[in-house]
C-alpha cells in the first residue's frame, strides 16, 4: 500500500516534470521538524531558525530557481514541533511524507531525532536531507536515501584533534592523554574515533584515563580530581554543551590545571559557552574551529559575516544563540537551494544525483561540501584551534592544526 502510493507519487512527479514543464507547482514544499521544548530544543532551534531565515529571504526574492521547471518558485516550509519526542517525531515525519506530500524532506537536528526519519525516508523511498544527525548507523551502502549536510560524521570529526596530539604532541611533551566522554551516540562515537586514531598512529602516546560517564552528568568535581591523579598531559573531554559548561566551570572552581584541555562546544556554541563559563574559563581551551571563525571562501550563498548580520537582524532578542548549529541549518538550506537549481526533476534519485554532484564543488560558509559514497559528510572538517583572549578580554580563535590553515602556535602547557 505504502509503496504503491509512493510509486504513484513519484510517477506523477516525473510525469509532471517531463511532459508539462509549464505546469510548475505554485510552491516547493520542504518538510521538516523542530523541537521547541525538551532535551533537544537547544540544538534544534538554532538549526531550524536558520532554515526559516533562508526561506524568508528567498521568498522575498520571489523564490528559488528550480531547474526542473526552469523558473523561480516560492518555498513553503511545512514544519512541525516534535517536542523532542521521538514517537511524535516519527508520526510527524510520516505526516510530512504521506499527507503533506512534501517535495523535500529535512530531518530534525541531532541523531536521536533524525533516527525515525531514516527509516521512514527509506521506507517511502524519499531522499532525506540529514542536517546534523551524524549517527554512524544511518549511513550504509544499502541505503541510498540519505545524505548528511552540515556536520562531519562522528567517526572522522575528531581527526584533527587526534592528529595534532600524535603529530605535534610528542614534540610539545604530550605523552599521556586522558579521554573523558559522555556515553551517548554523538560523543561516544567521537571518543572511539579519537582512541582509534591515537592507537593506530603508533605515536608514543599513552592513554592513561579513558572513562565514559552518563550524559546526564552535571558535576565533575570528583572526576576532575580522578583525572588529575593520573597526571595527563592532555585532557580530551567529549560531551554535549551542558556537559562542557559543567565540566569547564568545575575545572575553574577547583582550580585544576590541565596542560592541554580540549572540549567540543566552546567551538560549536561559543556564545552559549562564553555566557555560561565566562571568557576566562575558556582561555587556552582547545576546541574545534567553527566555520564562523574562518570565513571560508564561498561560491554559493551568504558569507559568514553577512549571515551573522541577517541573523542578528531577524533574531534580535537573543533567545536563540548564533553559532555552529545556526550555520549548520543555513548550510542545509544552501544545499537544498543548490540541489533545486541543478536537479532536472524532483524525483528522489534525481535529487540524490544532484546532491552528490555538488560534492567537492559546493563551497559554503561551512566549508567545502563533500560526501562519501554512503552519504556521510566528510568535507567541512573543523580544524583544531585554541581560544585566546583579545585585547578587550573577549574570546578569539587561533587555528592550530592542520598547519596549512593555522593562524598561530599552540599555548602549551596551559598556564
Amino acid at each position, binding site marked *: 500500500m505504502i509503496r504503491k502510493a509512493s510509486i504513484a507519487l513519484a510517477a506523477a512527479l516525473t510525469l509532471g516534470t517531463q511532459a508539462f514543464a509549464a505546469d510548475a507547482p505554485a510552491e516547493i514544499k520542504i518538510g521538516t521538524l523542530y523541537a*521547541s*521544548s*525538551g*532535551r533537544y*530544543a*537547544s540544538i534544534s*532551534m538554532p538549526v531550524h531558525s536558520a532554515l526559516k531565515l533562508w526561506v524568508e529571504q528567498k521568498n522575498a526574492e520571489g523564490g528559488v530557481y528550480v531547474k526542473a521547471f526552469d523558473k523561480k518558485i516560492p518555498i513553503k516550509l511545512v514544519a512541525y514541533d516534535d517536542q523532542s519526542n521521538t514517537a511524535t517525531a516519527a508520526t510527524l515525519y510520516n505526516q510530512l511524507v504521506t499527507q503533506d506530500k512534501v517535495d523535500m524532506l529535512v530531518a530534525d537536528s541531532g541523531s536521536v531525532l533524525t533516527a525515525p526519519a531514516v527509516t521512514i525516508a527509506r521506507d517511502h523511498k524519499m531522499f532525506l536531507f540529514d542536517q546534523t544527525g551524524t549517527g554512524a548507523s544511518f549511513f550504509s551502502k544499502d541505503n541510498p536515501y540519505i545524505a548528511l549536510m552540515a556536520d562531519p560524521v562522528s567517526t572522522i570529526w575528531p581527526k584533527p584533534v587526534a592528529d595534532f596530539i600524535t603529530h605535534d604532541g610528542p614534540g610539545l611533551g604530550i605523552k599521556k592523554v586522558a579521554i573523558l566522554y559522555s*556515553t551517548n551516540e554523538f560523543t561516544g562515537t567521537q571518543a572511539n574515533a579519537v582512541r582509534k586514531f591515537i592507537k593506530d598512529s603508533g605515536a608514543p602516546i599513552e592513554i592513561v584515563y579513558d*572513562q*565514559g*560517564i*552518563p550524559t*546526564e*552528568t*552535571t*558535576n565533575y*568535581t*570528583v*572526576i576532575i*580530581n*580522578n583525572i588529575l591523579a593520573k597526571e595527563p598531559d592532555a585532557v580530551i573531554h567529549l560531551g554535549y*554543551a*551542558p*556537559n562542557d*559548561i*559543567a*565540566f569547564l*566551570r*568545575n575545572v*575553574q*572552581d*577547583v*582550580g585544576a590545571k590541565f596542560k592541554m584541555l580540549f572540549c567540543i562546544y566552546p567551538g560549536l556554541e561559543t556564545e*552559549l559557552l562564553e*555566557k*555560561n*563559563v*565566562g571568557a576566562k574559563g575558556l582561555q587556552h581551551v582547545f576546541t574545534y574551529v567553527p566555520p564562523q571563525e574562518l570565513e571560508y571562501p564561498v561560491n554559493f550563498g551568504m558569507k559568514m559575516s553577512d549571515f551573522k548580520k541577517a541573523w542578528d537582524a531577524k533574531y534580535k532578542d537573543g*533567545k*536563540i*544563540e548564533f553559532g555552529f548549529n545556526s550555520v549548520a541549518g543555513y548550510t542545509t538550506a544552501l544545499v537544498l537551494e543548490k540541489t533545486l537549481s541543478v536537479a532536472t526533476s524532483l524525483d528522489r534519485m534525481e535529487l540524490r544525483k544532484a546532491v552528490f554532484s555538488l560534492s567537492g564543488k559546493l563551497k559554503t560558509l561551512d566549508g567545502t561540501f563533500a560526501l562519501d559514497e554512503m552519504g556521510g559528510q566528510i568535507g567541512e572538517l573543523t580544524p583544531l584551534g585554541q581560544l585566546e583572549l583579545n585585547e578587550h578580554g573577549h574570546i578569539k580563535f587561533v587555528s592550530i592544526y592542520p598547519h596549512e590553515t593555522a593562524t598561530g602556535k599552540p599555548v602549551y602547557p596551559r598556564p
Partner: protein
Amino acid sequence: MLYPLVAGVLFGLYFSLVGIGLNLVFGVMRIVNLAHGDFLMLGAFVAFGIYTAAGLDPLVGIPVAFALFCVAGLLLYWVLVPRLQRARDPEMLSFILFFGFSQVIEALTTIVFGTSERSIPSRQLASSLAGIRASLFGGEATNGPFRIFGLSFPASWVVAATVSVIAIICVYLYLYRTRLGTLTRAVMSRRDEAVATGINVDRVSAAAFGIGLGLAAVAGVFAPFMFGSFTPAFGIDATVTSFVVVVLGSLGNPLGTALGGVVYGVSYMLVQTYLSSWADLLPYVLLIAILLLRPSGLLGRRVRVA
C-alpha cells in the same frame, strides 16, 4: 578515597536541601508534588534574574525566592488542594495533577525564556561574603577554590552545603520548636486523628506547602552552580533525585532527609570514581533497594506496604 567522601558530603548536603521541601509536602498532605523540580528551576531563574538585572549576589535570591514561592505555594494550595483532598484517592490524583502542572510550568518558562542553558558565574555566589572570608581564612577576597584537608573544592559547593545545613536546622526548629510545627508533626503522623482532635489541618498543610515550595526555590538558587547550568527542562530529573533522597531518609524527618542526602551524595561520588559509566544507575537502584528492604527509610519508623 578522601576526596570523593568530602565531595559527596558537600554535594549530599545540598541534595538534602533539594529534597526537604518535597518531604514536607508529601509527609503532611500525602501529596506527590511531581512539579517539585520545576519550582527548583524557577528558583534558579529568580537567582539568574537578580544577578543579570540588578547585578546582585545570587545569595540575595534566597530570601526573595523563599518569600515569593511561599506565597505562591499558599495561593496554589487554596486553589488546588482542597478539591484534591475530597477525591477518593488524593495521593494518586495529586501525582497526575502535579505532573500536568509541571508540564505547564515547563511550557510557560520555555515560551518566556527560550531553551538555552543559562548560568551565573561561580565567583558571583557569595561575592558579598568573600571579603569576610578573606579576613577569616586569609587569602584573597575572591571566590577561589575552598581547601578542606588540603584538597580543593568549588567554593560554591561549600556555600551551598552551608546554606543547606542552615535550612535544615531551620526546618527542624520549625517542626520541633514552634506551635505550628508541632501541629504539622501531628498531622504527619496521624492525619485522621489530627482532624478529629480539631487541629486546623488546612492551615497546617497550607503552611507546609508554602514552606515546601519556598525551600525548593531556595535550593534552585544554587542550581546554576551545582549543575553547571539550567534550562526550563531540567525539573523532572531534579524531582526524581529528590524522591531518592527523601525516601532514603524518611518521611517527615528533616534529619532523615539530611542523612538521605549525604548517603546519596557519598555513594554517587564513590560510584563516579570507581564505576564511572554506571553512576546514573545508582539513584534508581538505591531507591528500589531502600523501598524494598527498609520502606520506612533509614531513620523512619512508619511502614508503608500494600
